[in-house]
């Protein structure tokens, strides 16, 4: 109470600026990075494999499809929305691809059709959110069931495979010793980080997520941005679906079941704020590698894959709580 009255006496024009070290260090990406280093050290002690970059790169190909989508999901969450349907979109667009290819369509056209499916699914999500003003969190629960169901109708209970040899095994193609999907991931990371950090659209994504009402008043075309982001989710999911199809050399309707959890986890672990307005591609990028090391580390340590579900679920909740706490500290 006494401090309150003091501030009254000399009305202050602004709070003091936070010291530079705080601005740089007290942020969630630092937490992610520290965890990454810690996980790496523990994992290397656990198994000599982890000192081998090649091993980590190989392991990462199991998760990199999710990581790519998580990058776009980061933008969606920063803009104050969420999309829980990407795993289902992966499955449906991959099933469209496989079914069309099997029906005799040239593989190139089938891939284009798959990407178009991604655009349509993202557009549908976006229209429900932007035009009909439904909450994205629950709408995408509905469309996730819908898209997964359509994938099942399309592909039935069988695996569709027998793709041409050149299409399969993209995770074994290396460029400069790095698997192609990882290169795709790194390139998309750089592109999205550049968009988010240096372009007007990126700036506006933060502004929309910070305050939609203030954005509207400042003349920002909020609906266009959000619609664009949902479509981007559809396209990224479609790319993820095609990469998975290539890696597995076959497609089933249950591709990536439960993948939405991992993607949301990567974004949250990377320090993006669940209520929008804050976050970074760097965080999600680091969190992707963190997750690779944790998951692979547990496998190497002979912890059953299934028990990893516990770790993933707990990590999701803990990372949201920690991120909220960090933002609450830097926020007066």
């Amino acid at each position, binding site marked *: 109470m006494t401090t309150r009255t003091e501030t009254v006496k000399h009305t202050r024009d602004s709070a003091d600026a936070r010291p530079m070290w705080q601005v740089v260090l007290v942020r969630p990406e630092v937490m992610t990075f520290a965890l990454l280093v810690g996980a790496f050290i523990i994992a290397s002690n656990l198994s000599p494999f982890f000192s081998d970059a090649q091993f980590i790169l190989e392991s990462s190909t199991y998760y990199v499809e999710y990581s790519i989508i998580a990058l776009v999901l980061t933008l969606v969450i920063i803009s104050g929305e969420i999309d829980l349907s990407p795993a289902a979109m992966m499955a449906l667009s991959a099933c469209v691809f496989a079914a069309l290819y099997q029906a005799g369509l040239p593989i190139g056209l089938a891939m284009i059709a798959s990407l178009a499916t991604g655009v349509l699914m993202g557009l549908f999500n976006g229209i429900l959110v932007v035009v009909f003003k439904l909450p994205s969190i*629950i709408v995408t629960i509905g469309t996730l069931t819908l898209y997964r169901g359509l994938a099942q109708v399309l592909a039935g209970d069988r695996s569709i495979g027998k793709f041409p040899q050149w299409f399969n095994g993209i995770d074994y193609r290396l460029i400069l010793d790095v698997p192609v999907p990882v290169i795709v991931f790194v390139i998309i990371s750089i592109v999205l980080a550049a968009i988010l950090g240096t372009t007007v659209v990126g700036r506006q994504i933060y502004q929309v997520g910070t305050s939609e009402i203030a954005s509207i008043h400042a003349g920002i075309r909020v609906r266009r941005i959000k619609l664009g982001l949902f479509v981007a989710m559809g396209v990224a999911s479609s790319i993820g679906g095609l990469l998975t199809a290539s890696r597995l050399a076959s497609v089933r309707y249950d591709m990536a079941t439960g993948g939405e*959890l991992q993607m949301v986890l990567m974004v949250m672990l990377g320090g993006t704020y669940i209520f929008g307005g804050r976050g970074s591609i760097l965080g999600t990028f680091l969190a992707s590698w963190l997750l690779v090391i944790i998951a692979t580390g547990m496998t190497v340590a002979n912890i059953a894959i299934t028990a*990893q579900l516990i770790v993933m679920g707990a990590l999701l909740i803990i990372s949201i709580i920690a991120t909220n706490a960090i933002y609450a500290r830097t926020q007066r």
Partner: protein
Amino acid sequence: MSLITKFLSTLLHRREAGIAVMIVLLALVVGAIQPRFLTLETLRIIALAIPLILIAAMGQMMVLVARHVDLSIGSILAFSSIIAGIMFRDLPEVPIIISIIAAIACGAALGFVNGVIVTLFKLPSIIVTLGTLSLYRGLVFLVSGARQVDPQYIPRSLIEMSQTSPIFGIPWIVILAFVIALLTYFFLDHVRLGRQIYALGSNPVAAPLRGIKVVPLTILVFTMSGALAGLTGIIYASRFGYVNPGITGVGFEFTVIAAVVIGGVSINGGVGTVLGTVLGVILLGMVNVALPLLGVSAFWQDVIYGAVIVIALLIDKSVRDRSARALAAARSAA
């Protein structure tokens, strides 16, 4: 005359009436195409499909009415089911009823954890329960050692609950489900605490101003949802005669949410009736049974669930917009 029209108009304005009409229409249409649909045997199959969804739907409905969502019920179901299964298998000397109570208590405990995390850290329930969905499933694998509990260990008496009937050939589990629905109805409509759940969801800002203890009430709602999911786990073991850590209850949450929103429960909280939810569950059960009879692949099931959720959201939204517009018009006319 005016009395009759008034009666008809109130009937038509009730969401429940709409679902009831759809149920009758569906029965008539499917029956016309495939007469086998209108037999007692089909009725029995539909009846057996209901309890599993209905009991969990009662819990999910309370959560939605309080303006939350619980995505973890499928995993809670599996956890309770596996606990009961393991007790049946490894501790055959323990009375069955104790195992059942233990299973329900486990469900309640997991629901309690959901409620505590949501209220303590003020996090969106949908994300928290997405996390616990995974976490609890992991616990299922952990306690079961990833091994299925095979049919020979499930007690006969439990399995018979789905097969024998005390009256009119209605199986025990169906009766149990409807008893649960009645109890929920009584709680939500005739007990003060139950009414507070509606108040909380209807206006979360005003609720504490009227002396409603929001935190304990929210935790209670999640705990009840967990307990009911736990009971559903027992019904699952009874119906299918085994428990598998990787299969039991996977994707169950979407079925239940679809049933509840068809029943007219609003995701914006404060709105929803037990009758509507029961009718929603029956409609969904009928659709499931009708599909194969009509020669439609069962694969369409999820498409229907998903479409139903999206359509129900759109209806809910348009009802809200319309009443808001009507109110504004009334105000400007005044």
